């Protein structure tokens, strides 16, 4: 009895000790509750304040993470969470993604104007909840916690997808998303239960976890790992679990799509990164060659499916869906470059991806709402009518392709360098195949990304309407574009910082 009491006290003490590092999460939860409560009032003023309140919440968490105390290496909350530099940088990224989503939503007429405040609170509250889930994903070091965090994100995602309930496409997308999502969650949970059965532990960052897996039946381990990865790959929209992406991208409101293409993808990558970190030790990696092969094939398939399918798309939203699949492929490829210190490169790539995607989705939102662009052909000649927006779109698209002088090129260069290094030291043919495929598919990528500037500038438009963009939209386009130039010419600014956080 006394023993139990002592254990309990210890547990409670450790929870209190770790609480400090969870301040951002508490803050997000607090703002979430605040938003839900305030949404109950019918006052128009309060309703108008809601997005700004959400913005404040996200902003303060980002500030807290940037200037906060040095990251602690220790494991908190009964070995469930770890607030290290990786998690910290991750949550800064998620915070920025959340802020950008709100900024895009404020410009979005469908969300802002038509609903006249109705359902506004829940929309912004859910965004906060989603970011909270992402933060937890980045911090989890325990399979059960990973599952819970992913589910928090998923549930928020399902509802956000059908924000515009009156639209048929949105409901269809939401339904598909829920069906795929719950299925993959179930499969993942099934795999996790195998792991628990085999090792008696869910803490996959422990060496003992992998040690006991070494003693288990290898086929069993591989099957369990594939089942778990099904859930992870679903979240980052990697092949063959990407089928939800095009429909959801087509149906969900633009800001939400922009968030999906960055937030959950980045968090999923961080989860995988933590999961495969054990493979950096060659002696462990050698015993799990099958899992690596599976991941390699998945990365290759993701690259190929993303880039080649994008060629056939006729709408900008679907095009971007497959583009986002292809970026998942590049990130997955980086995660396989064991022994080459790829963490900084991956974080750099994700940062760049964040700005390019939000910038381009903002452009697509403007195009869709102001100029009624539904298909790629509708961009015809618009570049001449609104040269500023056209040039900014060109900038984002070239960065997505990975051409200098834009940060997308730097991101790809870093990842390719890591893969080359890993190939040099390990001599695995799979890495060379991935490298060559990645580089050649970049050429393919140009072919579909250039379609938008092709219609914008090369095709002529007969109508001579006078098109305008609001100043706030212009400023936002610049806001997302500037980092792409800065991070090309001075990537070391960010890399040094990442380095410091990770150290």
């Amino acid at each position: 009895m006394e023993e139990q009491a002592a254990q309990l006290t210890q547990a409670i003490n450790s929870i209190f000790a770790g609480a400090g590092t969870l301040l951002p999460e508490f803050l997000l939860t607090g703002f979430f509750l605040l938003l839900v409560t305030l949404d109950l009032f019918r006052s128009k003023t309060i309703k108008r304040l809601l997005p700004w309140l959400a913005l404040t919440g996200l902003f303060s968490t980002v500030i807290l993470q940037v200037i906060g105390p040095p990251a602690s290496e220790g494991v908190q909350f009964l070995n469930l969470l770890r607030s290290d530099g990786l998690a910290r940088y991750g949550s800064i990224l998620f915070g920025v993604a959340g802020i950008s989503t709100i900024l895009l939503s404020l410009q979005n007429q469908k969300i802002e104007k038509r609903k006249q405040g109705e359902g506004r609170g829940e929309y912004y509250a859910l965004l906060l909840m989603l970011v909270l889930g992402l933060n937890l994903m980045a911090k989890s070091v325990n399979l059960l916690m990973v599952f819970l965090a992913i589910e928090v994100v998923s549930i928020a995602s399902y509802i956000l997808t059908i924000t515009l309930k009156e639209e048929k496409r949105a409901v269809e997308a939401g339904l598909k998303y829920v069906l795929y999502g719950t299925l993959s969650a179930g499969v993942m949970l099934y795999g996790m239960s195998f792991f628990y059965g085999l090792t008696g532990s869910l803490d996959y960052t422990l060496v003992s976890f992998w040690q006991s897996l070494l003693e288990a039946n290898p086929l069993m381990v591989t099957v369990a790992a594939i089942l778990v990865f099904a859930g992870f790959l679903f979240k980052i929209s990697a092949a063959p679990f990407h089928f939800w992406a095009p429909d959801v991208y087509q149906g969900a409101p633009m800001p939400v799509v922009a968030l999906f293409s960055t937030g959950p993808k980045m968090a999923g990558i961080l989860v995988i990164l933590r999961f495969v970190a054990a493979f950096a030790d060659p002696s462990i990696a050698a015993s799990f060659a099958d899992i690596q092969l599976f991941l390699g094939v998945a990365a290759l398939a993701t690259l190929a499916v993303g880039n080649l399918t994008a060629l056939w798309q006729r709408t900008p939203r679907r095009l971007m869906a497959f583009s986002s699949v292809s970026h998942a492929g590049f990130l997955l490829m980086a995660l396989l470059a064991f022994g080459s210190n790829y963490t900084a490169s991956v974080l750099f790539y994700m940062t760049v991806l964040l700005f390019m995607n939000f910038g381009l989705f903002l452009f697509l939102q403007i195009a869709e709402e102001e100029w009624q662009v539904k298909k790629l052909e509708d961009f015809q000649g618009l570049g001449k009518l609104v040269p500023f927006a056209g040039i900014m779109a060109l900038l984002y698209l070239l960065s997505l392709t990975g051409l200098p002088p834009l940060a997308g090129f730097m991101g790809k260069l870093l990842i390719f360098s890591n893969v080359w290094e890993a190939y040099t030291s390990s001599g695995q043919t799979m890495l060379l195949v991935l490298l060559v495929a990645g580089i050649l598919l970049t050429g393919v990528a140009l072919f579909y990304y250039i379609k938008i500037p092709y219609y914008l500038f090369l095709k002529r438009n007969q109508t001579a309407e006078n098109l305008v963009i609001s100043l706030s939209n212009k400023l936002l386009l610049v806001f997302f574009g500037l980092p792409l130039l800065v991070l090309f010419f001075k990537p070391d600014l960010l890399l040094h910082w990442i380095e410091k956080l990770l150290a």
Partner: protein
Amino acid sequence: MDFILSGLIFTPLLAALVVLLMPIRLQKPMKGVALLGTLVQMALSVLLYLGFDGAAPANGQSGYQFVEKLDWISFSLGSLGRFQIEYFVGVDGVSISMVLLTGIVGVIGVISSWTITKNVKGYFLLYLLLMTSVMGCFLALDFFLFYLFFEFMLLPMYFLIGIWGGPKREYAAIKFFIYTLVGSLFILIVMIGLYTSVIDPQATAWQMNLIGQGMPADANVILQVQQMLQQGVISGADMVRTFSIPAMMEPANFIPGSLLHVLSGVTLFDLPIRFVAFLLVFAGFLIKVPSVPVHTWLPDAHVEAPTPISVLLAAILLKVGGYGLIRIVYPVFPDAGAYFATLVGGLGVLSIIYGALCALAMNDLKKLIAYSSVSHMGFVLLGLASLTAEGVNGAIYMMFSHGIISAMLFLVVGVIYDRAHDRMILNFRGLAKRMPAYTAFVVIAFFASLGLPGFSGFIAELLVLLGSFSAPEATGMLPRWLAMVAVIGILLAAAYYLWALQRMFFGKYWIFPELREKANIFDLDRREYLMLVPLAILALLFGIFPHLLLDKIGMAVTGFTELVLLNGQEQLNMVLSSIIP
């Protein structure tokens, strides 16, 4: 003269910024700004040419003049050590000729663009950006910097063809873009392989505290670092990996165990991996040269591009391909260069003959000239593959001379197209009667191009053929029949030029009836004289006084051939011995 190279690169960029800030209706002043920008660039390039010391020894790894070197990007990746990218520009005998050419053609291009009316602002903005990136390409000595400028050429060119081009411009623009991008991705793979394998001995010495920070390392320290590297006693964290092209030329700077080290012994498809790397980067530049069989983008791009852009494309952009081979491919992979000499020379001769035969079959005058470019660029490959001093001198001379002459040829085509909105050879006859001055310049351009003694083209072809004939004895490269076949190319050139001349210009004046309504045939105006006369004078000048250029490039070429031949043979033996256990 301290920052003359940066001045050369950034003057057009500055002019572009001015154009960007000008309101859209000020079309004339915009043209003036563009002209001023390119004129300053030309003046600087002439100054550089005059100030360049052609007698200073150069061996490829050193001997660059007017060097500017600044730290740009530097970051560490943990145990992999530091990565360093520098703003590193310099000029040697090879680049000085290209810089001069770029300066001259840039101005001619602006004058030729004077008649542009559609979206003037965008046009000159892109034009000036293009001039910056081309110049940067010719001056960069850091591979990353080179690649940046190399890739950045694509975009302005894509829009210049795609917006201001002819009826099939969209197709031509995208074809150009895809071809060149695929080429540059090949180069990218090799660039990644190289910079992860090569260290900068100087910066590594700093990192290891062998000498004080910022102190220049003398030859002994460099040698010490290189020996320590090869013995494997430098820890990964101390290595400073670099993009510097001169550092990549020294096998001693390669990290032991890296894939591109001469002794790595790694093979891919039964070839040593260094050979595979050579083939990749060679293919990348081959597309730009262009050589048969990857030349098909060129005729399309030329036919659709507006006249000034055709001029730029033929006169300077194609030179980037040949220049890349001389600056990067051969000095970094001399072993593979020696091994594949016959392939390179063979592709050259194939281009010479195939390009000439295609030119013979063309009815469109612009296409004829485009194919003649393919044919002439074949001489560059042939001269380079011979690895003799004459051959390489000839290759560089050919690039310069072709730059001047092809600019003239495309301008000449532009003149008739402006008048008649058509350029089919069979639609015209006896133009000499109505346009005597024009005909005179056409004759000069054609004869200069087919290699008449007295014009620069003759010197170039002569040197290349001398080099490739003597190659079997002098360097052991190339079978002799290659040079003999190449001579047929000159005959064919005479055939297609003279035949075109005879069909279009001589005989009784006649033009195709359907053209008569729109056509307004008159002789050259003042603006056209302003472009054609200087080019004709230059073609003659460099044909009569070849030492004007050869004196400047001679030392660099000697250094180049020595480096490639000596190191090449030595490294080839090492590579081959390392893969056979």
